[in-house]
């Protein structure tokens, strides 16, 4: 992999042009500025106050101007201002970039305090940083990006993580599509070779909330923990992207931190009531396209009889056990006996268990073009939130209740989530304050969908069915006379479950109780010295009952399973702060703190493998021996840290942090890990003279070293319990070799950046370049199978991630009539590179979810590379580069795996436009993922089974009834006596002349099966991610009862654009589900993605 150009590696010329166009659109529109003019001033009086944001955090640098004059000032670092104004001044105008300008009547006041509300995403100038400390953004030596809760709570996602898509530069999200399913979020690239070790840390109100493995089983995605964060309770969210920002979180900081602050009682005196209600509808966004010319069967033959049920009293038909569409031409007026056809016994042809079924009465042999789509319906989501707030001078509180009720696009797939949030604080004395927040989330699902390649997943069924199948005939999913005993199937030969039967009878339930919260005490010894002590916890109990009804393909006698997952993480913290200044110009703060984290996991699985009495699902209704498994673990990390923040003349800022962790999971003599960081920033516009249209020109530099510990029990190998043989217990030697010499992983990073604000904050540009090296990775390296072990755990490898992020904010148009256009652009490019692996190991297979293809880390190459078998090609002569066709008519595979593509995009960009005019606001978010590849399992199989659109093309070009007569020729080079000749000389769609031919099925199937190269798609996509149209009703309409009534029309993922080469799939959900989470880059019978639209109503009483 050569990388000539650092900034645009791998980008061809036209890709660069596209990139520049993307940036320029933002810049040019940003430069269309409508300037305003100002006027004069006479006599004076003193006035002062403080400017805060909606979090109650002070806003330094806000401008305060007497309306229609040039008199004004800016707030200091504490958000305070003080100035003299003309005695006749009536109105003060407070403004700040990213905030709605506020006009306040002065009247007789000498103290005017205001709260400014944000208008633009990610542009607040005070942000919450590590450990929940609010800081002026201009003083930070590293990049952070903040999102306001409102931006997440209008066009909502039921998975909180997905709502970040397109809103934060440097963040890459992939998901699996189904209701409540999990997402994978990677910030600034994958730093760990451990495929699932790249999740950021989530911190809610100062306390980490676990987001570790979803512990899926049987291919069911139960969602990740962070997905349950309730958007209605989020005040703000800060993404600490790099270790320089997150170093204070020590061994959990390597992958970035998402810091969430929940809403508090705020400023309202007395009682405040807020109601937030939304209804959205979901429908399929992208669905594979199918051929509609050929029906079930093989070689053009089909005659239904028992549909492959060898056990039935009815004889076999002709090719009626085929679960593929290589049969006769459809829609030409013929009749056939089909599973859905009526019988002389008054049943369906497929009621093959019933001895009185009778003769099948042939029905028209026609295509059901929507037979796949008809299985999917409209999903519905109802979101209702009520919150009560109140405050007085002693304290405040907020109580919130949220109900999410969602039904998916597939039958019997739902999610009901109830969330209670309580937050309050109270000042006992001026010096002593207590705060607590508590969140309880109960998620209940009667059935979560299964994905993956197996008889239980819907897209698998779609692959192995036929174009003449009427899916509606399967809705009555029991065979006549065998209700509750034998399912009605479209195909008994390959024994595919009826998808309706599966959805309604074989449910994967969930009842999860999740509790997280914090209690905090603050004592102020003096204005300079404060102490905080905090206890926080995150706990869930996840109960998952799973049912398999009798006659299920793999479990004829039924089955019942109960999984229980218990997780508890407790954190104890203290933090001592000292704040002072030396002289007038030097401010500093020194803090000393500590943390102890204890984590417990428990998992239990109990299985009744055969039901005694059908239809009753308990562990005692068991005809066989109960199967059981369990896993418990504990771990602890102790930490101490110290950090200081200094600034000189509010111009130069220096932060130094140091943290030491001691982890129970590492060897005793090697369990101490030190994490330092330094960051520096300077406001150059205050150092050298710059044009007056420069508001801020900041440069910054951050350096940090963070780490990554390991999980419990990675030091010593064990013998594991297996299924007993009769009464004899069995143990097996662990397949993984553990390692008692482990060291912690170390990630070193630097980042440089600029933060520029121009034209009275009408244009802001934030640029960051970073370089991260992660060493001593704790990885499970695969051992070759002849060692008898599958892997060993070692410290090895070095991964480099470098890239840049651009955030651009602009207010291109702002008219005096109130019209305003805000624009925010995010762009990020990351390259992860494997610098080093362990000795003697040139490559590590990180993940192998699909058929042959694997995600392989190779020294010197990009992270996320997909490797697999390709087509062997002619290496010289006139046919150079052509696929070699063997004498069996199919392509020859390469001797070695070849590089197929990369799961990571080349770059990600997004553009947010907000238009506001009086009471109306419109928001449009476009999200673009450029580059990268994915493989499709569905494509491979559905082509081979003759279902997909392309598989019908060659056949339909031939005469009716003769589609299968002559062989088909795969284009390529056929070897004839040592020289190559073209294998197909005709490209009229029939491929009728050539050297080596195959039948129609092999023509499509064998070109793809076992050839990863043939299964690859470009993962580029653009999405109209979010559209909101809001109308704020005038307050006078509702008298004194209601205020702030806002109605919004919302839509998400309204439109998807992909290159022409990909007409079947949404790359965002083209992922495989594994026990530990999502694997992007491998479409593995993924459910189709959805678009949603609906409305949202906010009321305040």
């Amino acid at each position, binding site marked *: 992999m050569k990388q000539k150009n650092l900034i645009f590696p791998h980008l061809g010329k036209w890709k660069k042009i596209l990139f520049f166009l993307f940036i320029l659109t933002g810049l040019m529109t940003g430069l269309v500025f409508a300037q305003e003019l100002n006027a004069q001033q006479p006599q004076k009086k003193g006035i002062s106050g403080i400017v805060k944001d909606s979090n109650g955090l002070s806003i330094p640098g806000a401008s305060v101007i007497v309306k229609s004059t040039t008199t004004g000032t800016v707030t200091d670092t504490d958000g305070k201002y003080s100035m003299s104004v003309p005695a006749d001044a009536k109105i003060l105008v407070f403004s700040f970039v990213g905030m709605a300008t506020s006009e306040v009547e002065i009247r007789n006041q000498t103290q005017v305090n205001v709260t400014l509300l944000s208008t633009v995403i990610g542009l607040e100038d005070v942000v919450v940083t590590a450990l929940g400390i609010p800081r002026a953004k201009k003083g930070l030596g590293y990049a952070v990006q903040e999102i306001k809760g409102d931006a997440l709570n209008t066009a909502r996602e039921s998975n909180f993580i997905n709502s970040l898509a397109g809103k934060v530069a440097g963040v890459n999200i992939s998901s699996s599509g189904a209701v409540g399913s999990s997402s994978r979020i990677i910030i600034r690239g994958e730093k760990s070779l451990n495929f699932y070790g790249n999740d950021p840390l989530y911190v809610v109100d100062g306390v980490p909330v676990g987001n570790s493995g979803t512990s899926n089983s049987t291919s069911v995605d139960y969602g990740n923990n962070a997905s349950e964060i309730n958007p209605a309770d989020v005040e703000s969210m800060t993404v600490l992207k790099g270790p320089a920002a997150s170093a204070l979180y020590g061994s959990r900081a390597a992958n970035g931190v998402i810091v969430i602050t929940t809403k508090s009682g705020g400023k309202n005196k007395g009682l405040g009531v807020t109601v937030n209600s939304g209804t959205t509808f979901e429908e399929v966004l992208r669905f594979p396209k199918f051929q509609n010319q050929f029906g079930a069967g093989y070689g053009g033959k089909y005659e239904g009889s028992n549909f492959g049920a060898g056990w039935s009293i009815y004889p076999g038909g002709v090719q009626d056990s085929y679960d593929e569409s290589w049969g006769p031409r459809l829609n030409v007026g013929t009749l056939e006996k089909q599973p859905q056809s009526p019988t002389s016994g008054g049943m369906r042809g497929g009621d093959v268990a019933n001895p009185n079924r009778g003769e099948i009465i042939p029905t028209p042999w026609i295509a059901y073009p929507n037979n796949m789509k008809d299985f999917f319906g409209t999903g519905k989501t109802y979101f209702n939130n009520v919150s009560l707030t109140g405050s007085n001078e002693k304290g405040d509180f907020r109580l919130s209740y949220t109900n999410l009720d969602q039904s998916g696009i597939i039958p019997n797939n739902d999610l009901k989530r109830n969330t209670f949030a309580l937050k309050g604080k109270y000042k006992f004395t001026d010096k002593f304050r207590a705060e607590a927040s508590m969140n309880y989330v109960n998620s209940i699902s009667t059935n979560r969908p299964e994905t993956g390649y197996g008889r239980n997943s819907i897209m698998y069924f779609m692959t192995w069915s036929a174009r003449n199948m009427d899916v509606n005939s399967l809705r009555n999913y029991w065979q006549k006379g065998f209700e509750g005993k034998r399912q009605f199937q479209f195909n008994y030969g390959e*024994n595919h479950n009826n998808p309706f039967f599966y959805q309604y009878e074989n449910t994967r339930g969930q009842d999860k109780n999740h509790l997280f919260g914090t209690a905090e005490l603050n004592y102020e010894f003096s204005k300079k010295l404060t102490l905080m002590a905090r206890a926080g916890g995150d706990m869930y109990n996840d109960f998952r009952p799973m049912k398999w009804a009798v006659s299920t393909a793999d479990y004829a006698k039924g089955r019942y399973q109960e999984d229980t997952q218990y997780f508890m993480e407790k954190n104890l913290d203290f933090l001592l702060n000292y704040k002072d200044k030396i002289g007038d110009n030097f401010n500093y703060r020194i803090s000393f703190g500590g943390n102890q984290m204890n984590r417990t996991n428990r998992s239990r699985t109990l299985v009744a493998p055969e039901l005694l009495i059908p239809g009753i699902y308990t562990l005692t209704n068991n005809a066989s*021996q109960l199967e059981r498994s369990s896993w418990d673990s504990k771990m602890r990390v102790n930490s101490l840290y110290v950090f200081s923040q200094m600034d000189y003349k509010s111009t130069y800022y220096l932060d130094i942090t140091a943290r030491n962790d001691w982890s129970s999971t590492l060897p005793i003599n090697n*369990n101490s890990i030190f994490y330092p960081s330094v960051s520096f920033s300077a406001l150059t516009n205050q150092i050298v003279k710059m044009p007056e249209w420069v508001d801020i020109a900041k440069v910054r530099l951050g350096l940090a070293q963070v780490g990554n510990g390991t999980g*419990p029990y990675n030091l010593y190998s064990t*013998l594991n*319990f297996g*299924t007993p043989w009769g009464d004899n217990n069995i143990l097996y030697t662990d397949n993984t070799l553990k390692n008692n010499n482990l060291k912690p992983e170390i990630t070193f990073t630097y980042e440089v950046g600029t933060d520029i604000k121009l034209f009275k904050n009408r244009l802001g540009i934030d640029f960051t370049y970073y370089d991260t090296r992660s060493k001593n990775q704790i990885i499970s390296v695969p051992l070759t199978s*002849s060692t008898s072990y599958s892997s060993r755990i070692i410290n090895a490898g070095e991964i480099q991630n470098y890239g840049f992020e651009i955030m651009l904010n602009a207010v291109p148009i702002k008219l005096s009539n109130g019209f305003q256009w805000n624009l925010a652009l995010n762009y990020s490019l990351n390259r992860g590179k494997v610098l080093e692996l362990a000795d003697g190991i040139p490559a590590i297979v990180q993940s192998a979810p699909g058929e042959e293809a694997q995600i392989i880390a190779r020294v010197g190459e990009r992270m996320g590379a997909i490797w697999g078998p390709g087509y062997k090609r002619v290496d010289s002569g006139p046919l150079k580069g052509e696929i070699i066709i063997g004498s069996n008519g199919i392509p020859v595979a390469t001797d070695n795996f070849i590089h197929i593509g990369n799961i990571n995009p080349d770059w990600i960009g997004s553009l947010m436009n907000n238009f506001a005019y009086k009471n109306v606001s419109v928001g449009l978010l476009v999200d673009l993922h450029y580059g990268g590849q994915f493989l499709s399992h569905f494509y491979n199989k559905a082509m081979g089974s003759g279902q997909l659109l392309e598989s019908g093309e060659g056949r339909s070009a031939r005469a009716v009834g003769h589609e299968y007569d002559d062989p088909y020729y795969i284009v390529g080079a056929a070897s004839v006596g040592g020289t190559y000749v073209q294998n197909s000389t005709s490209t009229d769609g029939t491929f009728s002349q050539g050297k080596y031919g195959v039948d129609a099925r092999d023509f499509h199937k064998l070109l793809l099966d076992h050839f990863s190269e043939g299964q690859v798609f470009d993962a580029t996509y653009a999405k109209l991610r979010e559209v909101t149209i809001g109308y704020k009703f005038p307050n006078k309409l509702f008298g004194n009862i209601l205020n702030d009534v806002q109605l919004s029309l919302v839509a998400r993922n309204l439109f998807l654009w992909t290159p022409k080469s990909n007409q079947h799939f949404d790359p965002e959900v083209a992922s495989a589900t594994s026990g530990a989470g999502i694997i992007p880059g491998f479409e593995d019978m993924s459910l189709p993605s959805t678009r949603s639209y609906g409305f949202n109503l906010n009321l305040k009483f």
Partner: protein
Amino acid sequence: MMFSCTKDFKSINTNLNAPERISDPSLLLPGIIWDAANRNVAESFYVYGVLADQFEENYMSSFTNLTRDFSSGQSWANYGMIKNIYNLIDLSQKQGLANYQAAGLILKSWIFLRITDSYGPIPYTEAGKAGEGINFPKYDSQETIYAGLLKDLETANTLLGSTTEMMSGDNLYNGNIQNWKKFANSLSLRILLRQSGRKDPSAEMQKIIGNPSTYPIFTSYKDQAALQYLNKRENAHPIFLKQPSNWQGSEQLTQNLEVILKSMNDPRLAVFAMPTPASVTAGGPPQYFGVPNGMQQAETTNWNGGVNNQSTLGLLWAPEQFSLEFASPDAAQSVFMPYSELEFILAEAKEKGYITTGDAQTYYMNGIKDQFAYYASRIPSNFILPTAAMVIPPSSYYTQTNVAYTGTQTEKLHKIYTQKWLSLFFCGSEAWAEWRRVGVPTIIPGPKTNGYVPVRLLYPADEMLQNNANYKEAVKMLGGDGDALTTRVWWDID
């Protein structure tokens, strides 16, 4: 205070779920045997039965699916059990439990033989030793491996009975030391004959056959090495829980097997295969028809007038879901080495003069007779077709020209080879190995193949990737066409 708590770290990080070490070998032995037995069945079913032209499987029979990826799941996957075997040998040796140690050595030999016979040179001396720091095991020549296997079996024969511990957890022989000895020595004879093209086996074979008290060998199917599955779902014959579609849908009797069995009127036809659906529906005499391997799918499915006129594999091995009434979890066994094979080994050895003891015809006839007795003993009493009685042929079976031990030596050997091929039905890779060694019966590659029947499997992809330097050495050692399906292994000389 919280920072004094690091002293608890050791206890916090002590695994709550599983022991770091054990001392009781009976906790390891049954798992090893069970895993080996299941692989033996699965590999017969999916690949080796097809390579030996006994099972027709359209997916497999063009051999294009014998990829590197596929390869890692076949005999090579037996490497996974090696660490357990070493663990067993190690902990029994340390405690002076010679019987367990010997069982470990025998299983080790049996497993390594399976692996090397399919691939040629394989990691042997350095295999399974990642715990000792050997992460890139070198490959040994098949000659070296064979010598090692024979040495281990000799050691095992000596060790067995030298201590007095009862072998509990022995699901192969239920602690019968004598039977383990028989297995060790019979297996030695298999190995000696297989390498006979390279090394004269006479002295070693005669040493065993001439001294039955020191070197006992199998005497009937009752002491042959076969795992008896249990009448329990979790310990059932592995195919019992399989999908019927993977059974009747894709696996048929081959035409080759059909023709050979029919030519001798062999009652095993009704054991190995089920009658065609058409003949069952018609209610007349049961008909059996096989399908040639390696045809286009269309030709396969239309063969002999369609699937209603084709025979799928026998009911003895049928999955539960195919027939809730007849399928049995424990009627079929996993045969590691059948007694009849031993008799055919001895018949050939006597015929070729490797041994002086006994009579070739007697060995040969014993081998055939035992096959019928064995299958008769396996047929459950509720079977209608076949019943146990149907499996025993009339005496005329043994006197017919195709069976009687008559003719030239070449003809006699051909009969031995044919009967041996039949006796190795569903015995892992053995029928394929014997076909490679002696070329009987004739197997004609189907039109959908590239013109050959593979004589070895490719090395798995992970060996090429993770153990590349040693892999390259192995390819040199292989010679022939290199790491190809057409390169002959060391003992496959013709």
